């Protein structure tokens, strides 16, 4: 099973829709341990992404993802702007001018994206950030793929791990991002960035499933 460029476009559109729908929920999560803007930030960014998509609609997947990344960097701001922006940019760079991609390309793209986030954010797992949803998701997807499982099913396994990772941020003590200023008081709240990362993963699975 392969994913075509127009599926990638559909994926980005679905992310935008999902972020808009969950905007207030994400912002609310951020109010508890941050500054109440995560949903606003991402929705602002993905709204602009939607207006930019037509200009890359007939382009290769790398170009599409890099356009998403640059737009996010230029419009989101906050911590999540550079992080998600870098993630999409790096994924786009790895995929390059392909018009269709398979599981192996996806793994490469995911890992490049994660590495981009970690080096831009100087962060790792267990710090109560988006990484805690993304990293286990990638691992599970990769493991499933190497067990020989079909792309969609492997992605679904990744999504389950991603969701578990998101929920696992609740008991964590934040050591990166704004939530870290709260010290012990950050415990007991789900990380907004881990939540938006899960929404993106969910959008990907839904797009591939369609």
């Amino acid at each position, binding site marked *: 099973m392969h994913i075509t460029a127009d599926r990638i476009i559909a994926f980005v559109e679905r992310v935008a829709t999902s972020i808009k729908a969950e905007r207030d929920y994400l912002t609310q999560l951020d*109010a508890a341990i941050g*500054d*109440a803007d995560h949903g606003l930030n991402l929705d602002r960014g993905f709204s602009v992404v939607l207006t930019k998509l037509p200009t890359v609609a007939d382009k290769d997947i790398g170009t599409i993802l890099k356009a998403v990344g640059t737009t996010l960097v230029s419009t989101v*701001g*906050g911590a999540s702007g*550079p992080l998600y922006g870098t993630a999409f940019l790096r994924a786009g760079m790895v995929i390059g001018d392909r018009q269709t991609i398979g599981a192996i390309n996806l793994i490469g793209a995911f890992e490049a994206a994660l590495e981009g986030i970690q080096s831009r954010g100087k962060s790792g797992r267990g710090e109560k950030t988006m990484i805690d949803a993304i990293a286990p998701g990638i691992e599970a997807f990769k493991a499933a793929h190497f067990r020989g499982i079909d792309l969609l099913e492997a992605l679904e396994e990744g999504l389950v791990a991603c969701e578990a990772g998101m929920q696992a941020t609740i008991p964590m003590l934040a050591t990166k991002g704004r939530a870290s*200023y709260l010290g012990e008081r950050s415990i007991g709240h789900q990380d907004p960035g881990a939540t938006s990362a899960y929404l993106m993963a969910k959008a990907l699975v839904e797009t591939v499933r369609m």
Partner: protein
Amino acid sequence: MKKLINAPDDVVAEALAGMALAHADLIRVQPDPLVIVRADAPIANKVGIISGGGSGHEPMHGGFVGRGMLDAACPGHIFTSPVPDQMLAATRAVDAGRGVLQIVKNYTGDVMNFEMAAELAAAEGIEVATVITNDDVAVENSTWTAGRRGVGLTVLLEKIVGAAAEAGADLATLTALAQRVNAEGRSMGMALTSCTVPNVGRPGFDLPEGEIELGIGIHGEPGRYRVALAPAAEIAAMLVAPILEDLPFQRGDQVLAFVNGMGGTPLIELYLMYRELHKLLAARGIHIRRQLIGNYITSLDMAGCSFTLLRLDDHLTQLWDAPVLTPALRWGH
């Protein structure tokens, strides 16, 4: 939510338009990407000083653009770091060939966005240095965290470094000066009430009648501790103690004492707090050589205040006293 605004999404742009109309002699506001630039920038033969961060902290930073302070400021959305495009545009607008110093408050988002902008500016051949302020003693400084926040000291640092830049110092000297100011100052803040982000429409957190937040930042985030409302003298002591311990400040030190209002606290209370601060410092043998009292680095309509102490020597004092002509600070002209 009761605010003097039109649509929540337009607050920043409309307020900046008002600022541009009011202070056309001092600043201009460049749209898309949004940057507040000194009216006469770039200044020949001067290092450019830029700063920026989320909006909602007015007059910071836009109110500090002008002669003797910042050359440009990059306003993000409310409480959201600006994007690299803004810092790049600011850098281009103020660079006069001697490089640009970025003053960045230590927040993950600010740091990363300024960092990306610096990479882009460097690629264009503009020399960029960055100094990160992290004066907030409420947050433990550990290599395992995002580190301390940059708060009130940023205002003092921008004034002092701005004066040195106006006097012709080069980028390396200014960077070292900024690092020194950052090393010599500490802050701590508290909130009586939360604040309301226009796009959110309700206070960021609930603070019951008898409680206050201690160790807040400037983004309406909860503080480190919630304690019972106390008389001003006790609140002042709770703010001063961690500041003094941390540097540590010592008997005989001379300081610039900055009592900052968070936006919703009237001046009468800030002067009252200044008296408490003065008493506490006098008892420790610390001499207030200069002071600043007012709303300079705010959190929208939050009620509360912060204290910043900066250890002064003659050199820093002279730079503080040097003329400044900006919308929010002006003296000596």
